[in-house]
């Protein structure tokens, strides 16, 4: 707005304001309630206003802020080039520049440019006449069509078939479900550590725990990780069918929690059992707790199945090998999961 245009508009604005103010004051006098904004009870209160701040100090502030923005913005490039792009300095430079520019825009938006309160009418949303006309137009498109039911029915069948056809390629994305029952562990697979060295039976100490992986197999497979521990007889209470699975008291369990698939990496073994707790595995995600001495039975937490146990044997070299595959599925439950028999 150029200076010569401001005059009449501002005069008009002042006149309008005076009119509203008079109405306001009249209303306030009548109701004897103090605040001038009691005028909203009057239906013809007009909230429109326009104030031109003409605030030189605010303008100076905006200019100063913009100058600082330039400084910080330049600082970003300087830091990038000369300070090895240090993350903290870069953040201060660009973040500071943006915040200062924000301040400039907000100061301008509230204190420099004209502040206006305007009123707009909301349009109608429901136009019944228009709606009726459109409905008639659509229906008129079917004028003269005699066998509507046949056509609609045929259209429905065609549509359903096409939707099914469109969805079918999704099946190409995935394999069959049988692989969910597979693990790399089979009869005779040797247990190795994450460097590939085989575990000898007599190196398994009571009170320690070991992570074992299948030799010559992908260690990233879900069923690969095992927890291996040795328990003394007083903690060993396996069901009769599994006694042979733990040669010399050495037990192997899947490391994957049957609740939600995290690796079980907590093992507690008491220094003095009578005043603390018995040996147990705990999963760090939702704290399902399993007893290795009792076939992986769940004693706390949300796991719905016990921890799968792998039968072990000691081979001629004294190394640990799987005596067979898992007798149940490892990992989280699903519709077709093979649960433990015993």
């Amino acid at each position, binding site marked *: 707005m150029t200076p010569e245009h401001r005059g009449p508009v501002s005069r008009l604005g002042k006149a309008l304001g005076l009119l509203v103010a008079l109405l306001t004051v009249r209303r306030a006098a009548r109701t004897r309630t103090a605040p001038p*904004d009691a005028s909203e009870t009057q239906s013809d209160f007009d909230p429109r*206003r326009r104030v031109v701040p003409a605030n030189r100090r605010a303008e100076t502030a905006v200019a100063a802020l913009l100058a600082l923005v330039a400084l910080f913005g330049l600082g970003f490039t300087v830091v990038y080039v000369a300070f090895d792009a240090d993350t*903290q300095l870069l953040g201060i430079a660009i973040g500071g520049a943006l915040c200062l520019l924000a301040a400039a825009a*907000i100061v301008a938006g509230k204190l420099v440019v004209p502040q206006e309160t305007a009123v707009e009418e909301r349009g109608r949303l429901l136009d019944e006449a228009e709606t009726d006309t459109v409905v008639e137009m659509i229906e008129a498109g079917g004028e003269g069509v005699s066998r509507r039911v046949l056509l609609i029915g045929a259209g429905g069948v065609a549509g359903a078939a096409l939707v099914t056809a469109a969805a079918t390629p999704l099946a190409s994305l995935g394999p069959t479900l049988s692989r969910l029952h597979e693990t790399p562990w089979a009869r005779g697979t040797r247990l190795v550590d994450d460097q590939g060295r085989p575990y000898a039976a007599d190196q398994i100490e009571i009170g320690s725990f070991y992570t074992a992986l299948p030799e010559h197999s992908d260690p990233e497979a879900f069923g690969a990780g095992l927890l291996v521990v040795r328990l003394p007889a007083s903690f060993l209470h396996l069901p009769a069918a599994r006694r042979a699975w733990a040669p010399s008291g050495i037990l192997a369990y899947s490391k994957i929690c049957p609740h939600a698939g995290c690796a079980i990496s907590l093992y507690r073994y*008491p*220094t*003095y059992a009578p005043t*603390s707790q018995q040996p147990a595995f705990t999963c760090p995600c939702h704290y399902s707790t399993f007893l290795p001495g009792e076939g992986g039975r*769940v004693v*706390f937490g949300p796991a719905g199945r016990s921890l799968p146990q792998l039968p072990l044997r000691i081979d001629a070299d004294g190394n640990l090998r799987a005596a067979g595959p898992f007798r149940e599925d490892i990992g989280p439950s699903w519709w077709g999961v093979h649960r433990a028999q015993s």
Partner: protein
Amino acid sequence: MRSLLVRWLTRRSRVPRILRATLALVLGTIAIVGLAAPSSRGETGAATTFGGRAPEPNPPTKSPEPPGADNPTKTFPDSAALRAQGFTLYQGSCSSCHGIAAQGIPGVAPSLRAVGAGPLDFYLSTGRMPLEQPREEPMRSPPAFTRAQIDALIAFVSAFGGPPAPTANPSAGDLALGFHEFTLNCAGCHQIVARGGITVDAQVPDLEQTTPQQIAEAVRMGPYLMPHFDSAQIDQHDLDSIARYIVWTRHPADSGGWGIYNIGPIPEGIVAWFIGLAALVIVARLIGERMDEPVPTPNPREADR
């Protein structure tokens, strides 16, 4: 209580009575089930140990692992005078649980006769022993004894036998190896940068104050519920590396700025809401109007009458 319930069920309101009665029934059932239903089929607390079976007298505890052949050990001062002093201290603070001759008391505390200097130094120098109640979890606290007194106690008790104390030298370790071994064996309980954690009904300490000597002792003995690791599983170089990594975690590589304790998304979420979003809400309040501001009249000066 019952009259309140009856009044709530019978008062007139838009929500039909049958709906309110059903709601009361459902909530009551949930409350009862939630309180009574065990979270599993077994025991949860620290006190029960054998799931209903009678505890054996003196069941096997885990003995501390020896430092390993040719591995460095820490020798503690030893003399007749020290042993005598240790004897006196022992009778005053330890014998009520561990027995007059360190033989242990069944159901109360284990024997100390074959533990060696490592566990003694660990428990005493971290203030975990003496323990007020045998069933409490031993927690790090200011030591009850001075260094000299601890040496005396060690001299007395380790005279009964046991392996020498292990030791660790962080500067001989390799940081990358330490990170690898710590992740595999320790992070499940102690958190990935050793900020501590929990297991079911035991707290796992952070490792911010533990010395390399204490690290070595803890790894080889497994204090309280911690498993222990012998030199076949974690050899001396691994141990030095783990100690070096743990020392590193006190000042980890926080190249992103303020580390907010390095435990991940919990402090991150707190910062996002209470610093990030809070700042932006303040900006919004600066930009917008507030309900309690007076409505601006067109010419405030003229209306102020």
